[in-house]
Structures are given as structure tokens and as C-alpha cells.
């Protein structure tokens, strides 16, 4: 696997290099500028000029880019225009929350998808299928802002059993039981859509696998259907599911922006929204670059998992 990763590394680096420039340019192409949002409508032109030179925005674009790259090379991610702190710290704080949230959601989605699709295929019962299919539809059809608010209304307002939002006051590690309660609603809300979509994929893939000749062989050996699904069909169906999950991850991150807002979850989603609306270039740039890094990594990871799951990819050659 080592050499496999090594082979992918150059292209990943090229992507990052291109991305850094693309992001830098794109961020500045979007109309609106940091000075006007910082200064507010009533600031005098002198004030704005002062801010502009303060931020170094009066320099030529290329100079700014080179400067930024130089900073990056030194591990300095710059200072946020609006929030003022080190971009590094801001991102690190938000990243913890976002990672906890998205990882939980991803895990939930994966578990739900696994359980539901295996249930659907193993039981193969009309009513179970109908119920799963309807639940699926609702989960896909209802936008996050609807499910989020309904969840809050139900579990925090009408039956106040869970917090309506926010992160655990003492962090995630101090009191895991409390942390879990804070995490539950937003993670469920985030996981719903991805989980439902994944369930659809996995169910279809499993059904397709069950028609393969090797399943007939296994059945002829008297291996029960449940076991065939779990130990054989699933393994064959997983690679495509992993790809879908890798793609879904993007949707998940996108959804995180909304979920974080609804559940007051101070993560990167809120940060990036704020950074964009404030045209906080250093912050936006780093966040976007981070997003690209994460995606390149995720894709690498799915490829690795692919190879791990499918010996034909791993070992190569066809008989």
C-alpha cells in the first residue's frame, strides 16, 4: 500500500498547488471586499484606505499571492481580518467540533445504511421493505433545515430531553455522557440524508450481488442467506458503497454548514460562512485549501479501501 500512496502523492501535490492559486484568485474574484464589511457603511474613505493598507490589500495581487505562499511555507496561516486571531487557532478550534460532528454523522450514516440495507435484503419482507423505503424517502426528501428544527422542537422544546444546540460546556472528553447528548441531535440530522442515500445504494448493490453465481455456489453449500449477505455479498458490494460514501462526504460537509447554524455548533461550517460573508480572505483561503486537502485525502482513502476490499484491484490481472 505504501508504494501505492507514494505513486499518488505527486498528483496530489500538483492538485494542491493548482488549488492554492485557484482559491487565491477565486476568493478575490467574488464581489464585495473585506474592507467594506470591516469598516461598515459609515466609515470615511480615509478609514477604508487605512484598513486596506493595514491588511496589505493595496499590494499587487501577485505580491500578495507570493507573500501568502511564503507564509504557508513557514507554517504561518496568517491572521483573520475580522476575528483577529491566528487563522491556525481558529481553524483548529472549529476543526475539532466539525470533525467530531461529521465523523459521528458519517459513522451513524454508515451504520444506519449497513443495518437497513442488510435488513432489507436479508428479511426481504414486503412490509419491512415498504417501511424502510418510506423512511428513506422522508430522510432524503426533508431538507436539513426542516429535520433539524423538527428534531429540536420534538426533543428539546416539547419533550425537553436533549439540548437544543451548542457544544458540551466542558468539552467532549470530560463528560462523554453529556457530550453524547449534545452530539446526538445534530449528528442525526446531518446523517439522515447521507445515510438514506447510502442505504439506497447499498441495498441495490446487495440485490445485484445476490444474483451472482458465487451466491448460488454458497447457497448450494447450505450457507444461510443471512450469512451469505453478511460475509460475501456485502464484501463485494462495499467498494461501490465506499465510493458513494466518499462522494457523500462532500454533501455532508455542505450540510454541516446548515446543521452547525441550526444547532449552534461552532465548527468550520459557521466559520467558513462567516469568513465568506466577511470576505475574510486569509481565513477563507485556508479553509478552502483545507477542504481540498481533506478531499484529496478522502479520495486517496477510498481508493486504498477499494484496493483493500477488492483483491482484483489490489493484486491485478484477470484470469
Amino acid at each position: 500500500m505504501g508504494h501505492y500512496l507514494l505513486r499518488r502523492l505527486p498528483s496530489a501535490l500538483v492538485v494542491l498547488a493548482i488549488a492554492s492559486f485557484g482559491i487565491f484568485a477565486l476568493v478575490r474574484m467574488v464581489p464585495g471586499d473585506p474592507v467594506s464589511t470591516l469598516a461598515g457603511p459609515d466609515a470615511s474613505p480615509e478609514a477604508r484606505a487605512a484598513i486596506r493598507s493595514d491588511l496589505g490589500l493595496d499590494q499587487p495581487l501577485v505580491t500578495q499571492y507570493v507573500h501568502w505562499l511564503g507564509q504557508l511555507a513557514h507554517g504561518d496561516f496568517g491572521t483573520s481580518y475580522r476575528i483577529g486571531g491566528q487563522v491556525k487557532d481558529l481553524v483548529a478550534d472549529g476543526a475539532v467540533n466539525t470533525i467530531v460532528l461529521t465523523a459521528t454523522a458519517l459513522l451513524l450514516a454508515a451504520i444506519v445504511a449497513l443495518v437497513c440495507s442488510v435488513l432489507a435484503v436479508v428479511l426481504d419482507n414486503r412490509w419491512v421493505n415498504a417501511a424502510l423505503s418510506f423512511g428513506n424517502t422522508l430522510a432524503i426528501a426533508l431538507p436539513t433545515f426542516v429535520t433539524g428544527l423538527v428534531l429540536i422542537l420534538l426533543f428539546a422544546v416539547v419533550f425537553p430531553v436533549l439540548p437544543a444546540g451548542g457544544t458540551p460546556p466542558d468539552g467532549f472528553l470530560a463528560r462523554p455522557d453529556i457530550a453524547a447528548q449534545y452530539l446526538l441531535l445534530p449528528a442525526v440530522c446531518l446523517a439522515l440524508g447521507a445515510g438514506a442515500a447510502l442505504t439506497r445504494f447499498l441495498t441495490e448493490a446487495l440485490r445485484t450481488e445476490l444474483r451472482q453465481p458465487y451466491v448460488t455456489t454458497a447457497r448450494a453449500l447450505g450457507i444461510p442467506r443471512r450469512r451469505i449477505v453478511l460475509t460475501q455479498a456485502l464484501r463485494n458490494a462495499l467498494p461501490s458503497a465506499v465510493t458513494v460514501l466518499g462522494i457523500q462526504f462532500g454533501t455532508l460537509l455542505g450540510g454541516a454548514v446548515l446543521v452547525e447554524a441550526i444547532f449552534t455548533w461552532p465548527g468550520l461550517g459557521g466559520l467558513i460562512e462567516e469568513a465568506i460573508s466577511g470576505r475574510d480572505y486569509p481565513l477563507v483561503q485556508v479553509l478552502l485549501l483545507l477542504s481540498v486537502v481533506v478531499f484529496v485525502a478522502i479520495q486517496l482513502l477510498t481508493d486504498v479501501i477499494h484496493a483493500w476490499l477488492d483483491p482484483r484491484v489490489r493484486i491485478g490481472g484477470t484470469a
Partner: protein
Amino acid sequence: MSESLIDVAAPEASHPDDQFDTRRRPGIWTALRRGKGLAGLILIGAVVALGLLGPLLAPHGPTEQIPGANLVGPSGAHWFGTDEVNRDIFSRTLYGIRTDLLVVFLAVPIGATIGILFGLISSWWTFTDVVAQRVFDLVLAFPTLILAIGLTAFVGPGLRTVFFVIVAVELPVFGRLTRTSVRTVREMPYVEAAHVVGAGSLWQLRRHVLPNSLEPLLVQLAVSMSVAVFIEGALSFLGLGVRPPQPSLGSLIRDGVRNMYDAPFFAVGPLAVVVALVLGLLLVSQALAEARRA
């Protein structure tokens, strides 16, 4: 001996029953004419019909503000109630469907088609494959929101932006998915068999690889179409989507949610339409998948 040899060695064609073996193979169309497929088609059809016939059915104009009817609940006069600026939600829903039909049945398929073509063609050669995958990584890495803001910079907010954003969002999704299937299917001996008889890459892709990779794409198409309504709503939420006062299902739901505590009825109508549409899409995709497996 030789007589009987001819007799017994006659090919199976001699069997009289074979002449009648001319039934049509249960294909995609049959799948849509019964069970799940039919139910799905009816649901989609109903939503589409409501949208197309909207102007005839709507009791009010989509932007008509009815004096005094501020956020009133459902009644005989206003089936779904009225919104915060006194418009009939039912009428707006009907007109809103039209907007979403465009997004769901045009933008998503366009994005999907381009993505699939891209994925198919690029994955055939290692070099283009690597390049295309990295490009997809890049596009996927940009959250929808940022894509939307970036695009508004060039085309301004409105339906057009929504359209472009959805195309841009779906493109890499389908591209990547296609590529994964292609990588599995292209290893199949029957693709090799076509290769051996001299079929070019395009032929192999079009005739063998694509048709045998369609399952996940069909599912994704249904999912993407469903999610499109939601993306449209989220964009309106940021002021990048359909411009007020033009109605759309997404923006209606968003408005409804804004008024959740005062007017819980508001979002119900538009949501029901979306659920019907999504259910229809999923049912049809399920039916098609089943038909293709059979």
C-alpha cells in the same frame, strides 16, 4: 441407421413450440407499467401535472398579495393558508413546482450526463483518469455554498445560478461514480471480448461499459434529483437562489420553516409535494433497478 441419424440430430429449431417464442422481453417500459414503477410514475406525473396546470388551477396569482390575509391558516379559501406577505400558499406551491421541475428534470440530468460522459471517457486512459479525478476532487472540495457565491459573482443571483450550481455540483458526483463502475466493468471478459473483435474504446464504453454500470447511476440520479430541490432551497436561503417574489418549492419550505412556531401549517403543503416527488423518483428508480437486474 443414417436415416435415424438425420432424424435425431435435427437441431432444436425443429420443435414446433419455438415458432411462438416471440414475446417481448420485460424491459424498462414494462417495469414502469406495474407495481412500484407505476406508483412512482403516477406520483411524479401528478406533481408534474400540478406544475404544468398550475396557472389553470391556482385560485390566485403567485405574487398576488391578498389584503388582510396575513399568515392565516388553511381554510376553504386558502387550502394551504397564506404566507407572511399575504399570498396564497397553494397558488405559490403550484407555481413553485414549475421552477423546481426545471431544476429537477433539466439541471440534474444535464449535470449527470456531462458527468457520466466525462467519467466514462476520462477513465479509459490512465492519464486523463488521473487528471479528471483530481479535477473532480477540486470541484467536490468546494462546498455548494462557495460554488454558489463564486457563480453569483459572474451570473448574478437567480434561477440561472441555481441551475449552474446544480450542474456543477452533480458533475463530479456522477463523474466519480461512473469511473468507479467503469473500473469494475471494464475488467469483465465480455468487454475484452468486444475488444478482441476490434471494437474501439468508444464502442466498448457505449455498448458494454455504460449499460453495465448504470445501476448506481440510476440510484444516484434519483437521489440527486431529490436533493436538487433542497439545494435550491438552501441557495434561496442565502439569497443566491430563485429571486423573490418568484416561488419555488425550496424557498416556500424555507419560508415555512422560518414561521414554524406561528404557522406550522405553512411548510406542510410544499413539503408534501416534495415528498411525493421524491417518493415517485425513488420508486421509479427502484423499479428500473429491479427490471435491469431481472
